[in-house]
C-alpha cells in the first residue's frame, strides 16, 4: 500500500524527521487559507497522487502570492497528471499540498528499502538529488552510496557517517545528517514500511536537512498492526476492479489484451499469461482465484473479467490438487448461471478427477464452454477464439 506525500510527512514529523510545514487542500479556497496560515511570501502547490515525476508533469508549481496560490490550485486540482509512473492514462488530481518555500542550497537523494539478497534494509544516498534514482543507478552507479542495516543492531552512527562522508558533507554537518537518517530508519521499521524515498532531500541555507518530498510504501501483510497507516489508504488512487476483486479473495490485475484468464495460483496465473503470449495472443488480465475455486468465486471472477470490454474469450486454467476438478467443473457450470457469460470459455482442468470433470462439462451442454486437453491446447483454443476463429 502507498500513501500520499502529505501523509508520509505527517509520519516523518511524528518522528522528528524535519520537513517544510504544509497543509493539504481540496479546493482553491482551502489552498489560499493554507497559504495564509503558513505565512511567508513563497509557497509550493503540489499535486497529491500516488506517482513520482509530478514536477516534470506540471503538478508542482511555485506561487509568490496567495492569489497565485489560488490560480495554481485551481489549475492543478482536477487535472489529469501524466508522469512516467502513471502510464499514458494519467491520474486525476483531487488534492493539493500547500507547502512553505524552502531556501535550497543543495539537493540530495535518500531512500530506504529491503535488500532481498542481504535480507535486511539498506539506506541509499546520492548527491544526484531531484533525478530519477533508477537513472542514476544505471548511468552513474558510483554516485549511490549504500549501507545495509542489520535489524538486530539497528541504525548506528557509523551507518550515518558512511553515508555523510560518501556524500561529501562537511564535518560540521555530519551530526545533523546522522540524526536525520537515524530518525528516518525508525519511521521505516516502526511502520513496517516497504520503502521510503526522499527525492530531494535538501540542505538549506542555514545548514539544516529537510525532506522536501516524501514517498512511502508499506508491507500489506503487516498493515493489520498499523491502524494509523491503514486509515491513510486512498481508495481513489487504486483500480476499482482490483479493490472489488480483493474483497472476494481474488487477486486481479488488468492488462491490455483480449484473452481473459482465470487461474488458481499466482505462478500458474503468470505462466498462463505467458503461454497465451507464446501462442500469439494477448492476456487481458492476471487473475488468481485462490485455492477453493468455488461457484461463487468463479462467478465473481467471470464478472470482473467481463467488466473489461476488450475481453473476447476467457481461458479458465485450474490445476486441481486438493480441490477436485469435478467440483471445479460444477462450480464453473453454476457460475455461468449466476453471471451471464457471453464469450467463449475455454476450460482446462487437470489434476484430481480431471476425466470426470471433462465429462461434466461436456454433458452440461453449454454451448460456449469448450474443454481443453492441457495448458498448450487451452491457450491455443483461447487465442483462436479471441481472433474469432
Amino acid at each position: 500500500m502507498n500513501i500520499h506525500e502529505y501523509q508520509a510527512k505527517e509520519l516523518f514529523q511524528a518522528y522528528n524527521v524535519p520537513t517544510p510545514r504544509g497543509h493539504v487542500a481540496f479546493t482553491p479556497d482551502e489552498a489560499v487559507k493554507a497559504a495564509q496560515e503558513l505565512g511567508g511570501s513563497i509557497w509550493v502547490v503540489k499535486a497529491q497522487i500516488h506517482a513520482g515525476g509530478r514536477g516534470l508533469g506540471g503538478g508542482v508549481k511555485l506561487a509568490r502570492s496567495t492569489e497565485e496560490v489560488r490560480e495554481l490550485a485551481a489549475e492543478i486540482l482536477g487535472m489529469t497528471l501524466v508522469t512516467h509512473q502513471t502510464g499514458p492514462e494519467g491520474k486525476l488530481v483531487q488534492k493539493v499540498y500547500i507547502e512553505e518555500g524552502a531556501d535550497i542550497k543543495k539537493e540530495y537523494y535518500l531512500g530506504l528499502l529491503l535488500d532481498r539478497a542481504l535480507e535486511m534494509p539498506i539506506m541509499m544516498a546520492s548527491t544526484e538529488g531531484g533525478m530519477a534514482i533508477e537513472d542514476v543507478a544505471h548511468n552513474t552507479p558510483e554516485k549511490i552510496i549504500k549501507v545495509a542495516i542489520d535489524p538486530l543492531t539497528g541504525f548506528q552512527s557509523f551507518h550515518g557517517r558512511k553515508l555523510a562522508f560518501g556524500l561529501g558533507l562537511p564535518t560540521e554537518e555530519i551530526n545533523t545528517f546522522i540524526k536525520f537518517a537515524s530518525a528516518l530508519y525508525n519511521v521505516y521499521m516502526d511502520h513496517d514500511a516497504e520503502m521510503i524515498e526522499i527525492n530531494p532531500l535538501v540542505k538549506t541555507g542555514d545548514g539544516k536537512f529537510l525532506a522536501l518530498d516524501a514517498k512511502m510504501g508499506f508491507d500489506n501483510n503487516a498493515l493489520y498492526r498499523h491502524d494509523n497507516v491503514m486509515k491513510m489508504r486512498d481508495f481513489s488512487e487504486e483500480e476499482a476492479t482490483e479493490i472489488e476483486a480483493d474483497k472476494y479473495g481474488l487477486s486481479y490485475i488488468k492488462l491490455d489484451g483480449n484473452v481473459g484468464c482465470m487461474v488458481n495460483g499466482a505462478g500458474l496465473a503468470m505462466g498462463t499469461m505467458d503461454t497465451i503470449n507464446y501462442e500469439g495472443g494477448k492476456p487481458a488480465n492476471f487473475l488468481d482465484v485462490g485455492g477453493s475455486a468455488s461457484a461463487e468465486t468463479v462467478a465473481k471472477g467471470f464478472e470482473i473479467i467481463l467488466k473489461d470490454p476488450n475481453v473476447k474469450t476467457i481461458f479458465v486454467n485450474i490445476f486441481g490438487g486438493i480441490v477436485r476438478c469435478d467440483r471445479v467443473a460444477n462450480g464453473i457450470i453454476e457460475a455461468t448461471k449466476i453471471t451471464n457469460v457471453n464469450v467463449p470459455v475455454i476450460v482446462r482442468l487437470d489434476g484430481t478427477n480431471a476425466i470426470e470433470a471433462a465429462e461434466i462439462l461436456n454433458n452440461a451442454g453449454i454451448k460456449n464452454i469448450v474443454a481443453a486437453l492441457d495448458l498448450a491446447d487451452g491457450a491455443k483454443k483461447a487465442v483462436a477464439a479471441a481472433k474469432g476463429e
Partner: protein
Amino acid sequence: MSILVNKDTKVIVQGFTGKEGSFHAEQCMAYGTKIVGGVTPGKGGQEHLGQPVFNTVADAVSATGATVSMIFVPPAYVSDAVMEAADAGITMAVIITEGAPVKDMMYAKAYATKKNMMTIGPNCPGIITADECKIGIMPGFIFKKGNIGLISKSGTLTYESANQVVKEGFGITTAVGIGGDPIIGLSYKQLLPMFEADPETKAIVMIGEIGGDLEIQAAAYIKEHITKPVVAFIAGQTAPAGKRMGHAGAIISGGAGTAAEKMAALTAAGVTVVVSPADIGKAVAEVMKNLK
C-alpha cells in the same frame, strides 16, 4: 535417495489442532509421512489424529525426537513459531502460512540461521520426496517417483511441472516449493548442490518468477558448480512493471527483476530455458534423452 526428507524423517506440526493444520497433517500421514505429534499451546497432553499434542516445541522434540516442523500458525504468529522451533533444536522448519510480515521473517530467519535451522517458505506448498514423505499441502499423487529434482517459487506451477514430467514417462526425486515472498528460506542456490550430490537425481527443473535476483544468483552458481542438466521456466514475461503479481515478492521494481534478464542469465549458464510453461515436460524429456 532424495534430498532433505525421506521415509524416516520425524515431523511435528505447529498449529496441529487448527483447521488447516489438521486437514493437511492428516493428508501427509495418509501419504506416509511420519507425523509424530504436534504443538498447540494450552492443549498439551491431549491426543489429535492419533498423535500426542504438546504445549511447546521443546516438549515435542524431547518426547518424539522430531527434526522437522511443519508450520501452519496464523501469519501474525509465524516468526514466534519459527524462532521457537529453532530454539528447540528443530533442524528444518517448513512454513506453509501465507501473509507473514516481511519484517517478522527478517528477524525469524536471522535467528534460525544463528541456530543452524534451515527454513523452507513461508507462503509455499512445502517439500515432498516422492512415495516417502510429504511435508506440505501439495497433492501427493502427482509426484511419481523418478529422477528429476524440482525447485519452484510457485505452488500450482510445481504441480503443473511435476505432472508434465510424469506424463513424459519420468518422475520426481524431491520437489521443493520455496515460496514467492521477499524473504524466503532455502533457495535455488542452497538446493541445487543438494540435487547435484544426490545420485538418484539426473536432471533438475527450476521454476522462477519476476522479482528479486535469486534466479540470477542461481544462474551464476549453475555455471560454476552444476554438471547435471537444468530446465528452467520464469513466470511473468508478460507481467507489467511495478505491479505485484499475487506473490508478495513477484514485482518488477525500478526496472529490475524482469523475466527477460533472468532467462538471459540462465541461458548463458547453459540452462535449457523454456518460454512456455507448457514445454517443461518436453524439455525434460529432451535433456534426459541426451544424457543417455
